[in-house]
């Protein structure tokens, strides 16, 4: 029976984790949720990435801002039947897009060298670390099936989207569930 449960994976990209906090704000409904779905990989579980076989629903928080988040977004797209962009950063690009206007070089210089609390700072550089890119909404990198905006989206809106998907319907965000606030 467990095999037939809907599988859900989530991850956060260039976000603040607030949308995942809002996911936890569904409170006791999370008990109902885990009876209906199997959470395969999340940032707070041991398994960090969805398995190759894929999941029914992928949930991504945050925008795409470097080579790592770009590859995670692409992997989630490949491995998810339905991909949800969770929160304003995932949907619109969000706060991190502010750095696009000044450029990556200037942003790094400011963050690692010029901050008032930094002494002898230098911009980290290593072939293993992610390469920064301009930040953008996930749908600028891979197609998104369900947009769930909000900063963060309310727990009720998240619950509505998940239960609609579980009922086999594509959620239509309107009224109190649609809120970019």
């Amino acid at each position, binding site marked *: 029976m467990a095999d037939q449960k809907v599988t859900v994976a989530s991850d956060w990209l260039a976000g603040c984790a607030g949308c995942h906090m809002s996911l936890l704000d569904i409170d006791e409904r999370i008990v109902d949720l885990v009876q209906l779905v199997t959470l395969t990989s999340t940032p707070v579980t041991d398994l960090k990435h969805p398995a190759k076989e894929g999941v029914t629903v992928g949930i991504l928080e945050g925008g795409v801002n470097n080579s790592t988040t770009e590859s995670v977004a692409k992997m989630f797209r490949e491995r998810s039947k339905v991909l949800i962009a969770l929160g304003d950063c995932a949907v619109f690009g969000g706060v991190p*897009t502010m750095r696009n206007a000044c450029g990556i070089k200037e942003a790094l210089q400011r963050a690692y060298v010029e901050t008032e609390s930094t002494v002898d700072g230098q911009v980290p550089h290593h072939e293993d670390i992610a390469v920064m890119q301009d*930040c953008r909404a996930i749908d600028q990198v891979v197609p998104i099936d369900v947009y769930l905006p909000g900063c963060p989206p309310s727990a009720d809106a998240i619950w509505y989207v998940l239960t609609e998907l579980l009922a086999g319907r594509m959620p239509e965000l309107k009224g*109190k569930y*649609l809120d*970019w606030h």
Partner: protein
Amino acid sequence: MACLNITINGRQIEAQAGQTVLQAATANDIEIPVLCNHPALQPQGSCRMCLVEIEKQRSLQPACTFPVTDGMVIKTESEKVQAARKFVLELLFSERIHYCMYCPMSGTDESTDCDLQRLGYRYGLTHWEYAPNYKKRWPVDASRTYFILDHSRCILCRCCVRACDEIAANHTIGVKDRGARTMIIADMDVPFGASSCVSCGTCLQVCPTGALMDRRSAYMGLHTDVEHVKTTCMACPVGCGIEAITRDRLLLRAEGDWDAANAGLLCVTGRFEVVEPQPARIQQPMIKRNGDWVNVTLDEALDVVASRLKSAGPVAGLVTPRATGETMTAFHRFFEEVLRSDQAGLLYGEMPPTGFGALATLQDLSNADCVVVVNGEPLQDQKVLGYITKRAVDHGARLVVVNDAPTQLDPWAGVTLPLATIAEIAPMVDAAQHPVVLYAGGLAPAAYDVLRALPVQTRFLPLYEGTNTAGAARLGLSARRVQGSALFLLAGDEAKADHGVTLPETAFTVVQAAYHTAWTEAADVVLPAPVWTEQTGHIVNVEGRELPVNPSITAPQGIEPVESVLIKLAAHLGHGLN
């Protein structure tokens, strides 16, 4: 006016010839969404939010500019219309960076103060179909003291441009460049703080997004959090209608009342300066003992005042012209009936002679075809009158300035005359159909004779100092030198001891005031007083109209209305006053 039969969404409706589709729909409670349209501004049809389907029209048409014709059949929410509106919104959101979470206007579909966001919700925009250009940085103009222009939130609806042109008649705001490069600018593209902007804030009031935002009230509450109270501005005798916007006993903002004579227009003083935090309030009655102030109860203070007034001999009284008519009446009666003193006067504010003809309304001034300003500086002292005068000039009125010194209105004047040649206005006023004369006090009798001889269609507006000086005049209270051995000064909410007032030298002085000033410092007893936002009553304005003053904030505990303190003081003196 001819009556036309039209059909909107299957409903038979009677419309008036000359109405636009939007006006006909609005009059019948059919809502059509708009962004660039404002009832107080000329329609321009640029935002395309109000597109509707009209039978026999090739394409969708903007309701705000399309005139109704007999038999017209209109659909305001057909699938085609909704798709077009959604597309318009997609384009608007793609143009600049409308990040709602940073914006003070942002809220839910119920609480948002932003028309763009409200429509985004209404038409189900879950995301932006066309990503905005995050590499481009739109400037923020924070060069003005009271409000900020954030270009990234601007949708180029030009409501601000039209408000500046049509309502404030200041013509500061314009646009530069074309297409996606179009930008709102001040004058020839200078920072607003360095421009001809007079900070009347009319543009702020009509902005449908968060592009123009009030520094003080930003992030302090959306329309669902605040309370609106219609009242009268107490800053000058024009007496503009305002909406005081408050939250938790804090005055956040003042907006011009669209339904009042000023029709939304305010000046920098009425919209912003009066809302600024004021000095510390006088919370409790105080008595000076051995040179030090001691806080006492109202009863103790009134005991001292009553015994000193009884023994003092003649008592002089001065009342601020910022007091309501009700307060002035109580003050006047207190002096006549309780103290039996004729030494009650107005603290400052001299009414010019009146009775040359009918008083003008602000509407008369706006519609005037000839405006004469005699010895006044309305753009400085009664700013809204100055703006409306400029509006009349925009509509083709001839402006005649009669003054021995240069005035700020001179650039708009067709004729400027020295006071000695005031008689030359007569033929110009004669030639006009709706002339309005604004005149100040202090003129030679011969000058007033000229005004008196003007034709009967002439309307007059006196220019003077003091919010309710006209109300005081009706009670026979005027600015004069009062005499006595004791002084009762009702300073009300005067924040500074100025206006060139010299108080009479008296052995005992009691001051009823909201704020500490040089007047209260020199007093023997100080009684607290409410401020303008806490008062109930009326004032008489330049038009001679009685205007309501409604409380938007509850006075701090222990601060009673002036009238009730006077009634109590009368009782302490053994008299009844009701």
